[in-house]
């Protein structure tokens, strides 16, 4: 490993994510947190934007807080291919030497950041929910849940740079967009010849069932074993629609084939942190609670007053979900 000096690495980078031409909210959120850390360190905050035909998006990253945007706009980056994205980011980091690189802990971020960390001999911390700066050492404390949220860990990268992390969305606050902010848009040279892409995306199939992605929803209405059948899930969908939320499910409901796996909340499904989580007929297995205990407000509806879900819920109703859920749907429709 080449000798290196920590002081040679300067600046905070946010790798922006976009799917189908739209920037992901997590990129704005991380620019918000990145701005704060960059200001404390008195360094530049830069965004990295990779893709094909994405240059017009760069100004939005400046408006969201970036001092500089490194834009790599190339047909080779049309689709998300791990090796291409990892290759480009590693070349940029080797050339410009940032001390911190963050991206969203999304399916994309979590897939290609590990490859970059190996290329750069850098440490990588997954799925962070907080960052604290040790100003003296210029080390960033990376705080993350493990064991399905049952353990918190503070991770530090004392002797390597850059310090890389993926960070959970809906945790950090984006700055107000300011179209008057000034920022520099840079198009660095990339040696595409040296990048091999042996896994290529050839098609995308939009999932029909998912109208709202549960990982990003502000409100989630979830059904569990108590819902009883796939047909009965209609009352869950109806409530979700009335309250403009997404449909979630416990593992029991997914394993029974009532709802597709992409709706599963919990340790073997998705971790969600909506503002409101309505748990219907979900008793509250620890594996389920691991995936939703970060919700701002949990409303539990269950016929068993002793169900563990009530121990983490803010609001609870003991009763028959087949009566209460439709009644609540009606009440919401009435306004």
């Amino acid at each position, binding site marked *: 490993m080449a000798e290196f000096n920590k002081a040679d690495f300067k600046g905070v980078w946010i790798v922006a994510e976009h799917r189908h031409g739209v920037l992901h909210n997590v990129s704005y959120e991380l620019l918000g947190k990145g701005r704060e850390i960059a200001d404390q360190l008195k360094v530049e905050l830069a965004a990295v934007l990779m893709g094909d035909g994405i240059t017009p998006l760069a100004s939005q990253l400046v408006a969201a807080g970036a001092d500089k945007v490194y834009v790599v706009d190339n047909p080779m980056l049309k689709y998300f291919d791990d090796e291409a994205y990892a290759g480009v980011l590693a070349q940029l980091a080797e050339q410009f030497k940032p001390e911190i690189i963050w991206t969203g802990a999304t399916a994309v971020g979590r897939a290609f950041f590990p490859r970059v960390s190996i290329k750069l001999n850098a440490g990588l911390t997954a799925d962070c929910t907080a960052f604290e700066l040790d100003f003296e050492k210029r080390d960033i404390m990376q705080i993350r849940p493990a064991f399905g949220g049952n353990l918190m860990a503070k991770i530090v990268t004392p002797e390597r740079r850059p310090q890389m992390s993926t960070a959970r969305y809906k945790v950090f606050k984006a700055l107000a967009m300011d179209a008057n902010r000034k920022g520099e848009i840079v198009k660095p040279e990339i040696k595409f010849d040296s990048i091999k892409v042996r*896994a290529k995306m050839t098609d995308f199939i939009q999932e029909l069932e998912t109208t709202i992605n549960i990982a990003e929803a502000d409100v989630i209405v979830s059904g569990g074993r108590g819902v009883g059948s796939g047909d009965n899930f209609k009352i869950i969908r109806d409530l979700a629609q009335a309250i403009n939320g997404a449909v979630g499910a416990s593992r029991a409901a997914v394993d029974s084939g009532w709802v597709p796996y992409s709706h599963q909340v919990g340790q073997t499904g998705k971790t969600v942190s909506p503002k409101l989580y309505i748990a219907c007929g979900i008793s509250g297995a620890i594996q389920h609670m691991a995936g939703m*205990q970060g919700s701002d407000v949990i409303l539990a509806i269950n016929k068993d007053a002793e169900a563990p879900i009530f121990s983490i819920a*803010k609001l609870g109703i003991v009763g028959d979900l087949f009566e209460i859920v439709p009644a609540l749907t009606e009440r919401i429709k009435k306004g």
Partner: protein
Amino acid sequence: MDIVVCVKQVPDTTDIKVDPETGTLKRETAGTTMNPFDMYAVEEGLRLKEKLGGKVTVVTMGPPMAKEMLKIAIAMGVDEAVLLSDRALAGSDTWATSYAVAQMCKKLGYNMILFGKQAIDGDTAQVGPSVAEYLDIPCVTWVKKVREVSETEITVERMMEDGVDVVKATLPVALTVVKEINEPRLESLKGKMRAKKYEVPTWSLADVNGDPAMVGLKNSPTRVAKSWSPERKFGKAEMIDGADAAEKADKVFNRVKDLGFIK
């Protein structure tokens, strides 16, 4: 087709305890098992072998007791299992672990390397793509279906937040799989008999030509500075009562409205 499946031994419950003095995990209080996501990787390995022929080898890195966990895979029907165990590896983070696992794969030889999408203890999902990078092979994460596979090429479905990406990769390749991909088989009686007698070979770091300067706590880029049990956010729920469902619904509607969720 040489298929290597990388698995991890994890505590068999999420209800783990933290030593309040040291802030470290009380691992001894929990039993251990195979990471649940890795069961899907083992199953997919077996299915690919049934289709293409060849051999399935399951590997892990861990303490000697991890041999018992490897026997689960033997009982499911894999051909061989190998343990990498060495004091020098203790405290390795994902960067160092991936290096060691990649060295194992090099020694075994492979056309395909399978992983569960992540381990339920660390929840990082980093080892699969990192091993692929060390080996300089492509990796497809979050695979929910193998559409087509030949000796040279594979087409899979990758589960994203908003749908499915279809990805075509050349072999050798690494895949990390999600639970939607299959339903793992149960251990067979014949498999259990074989597992009972099976001697799991144990390799040291030297056996896989591993560089001691690449592994262990000291050489890992990341360190755990502190760990603790999170405080639960809420105490006891505020219970909403009423004469009938309509009244309960009305009361909860007002509470939820007060909290600003209904405009």
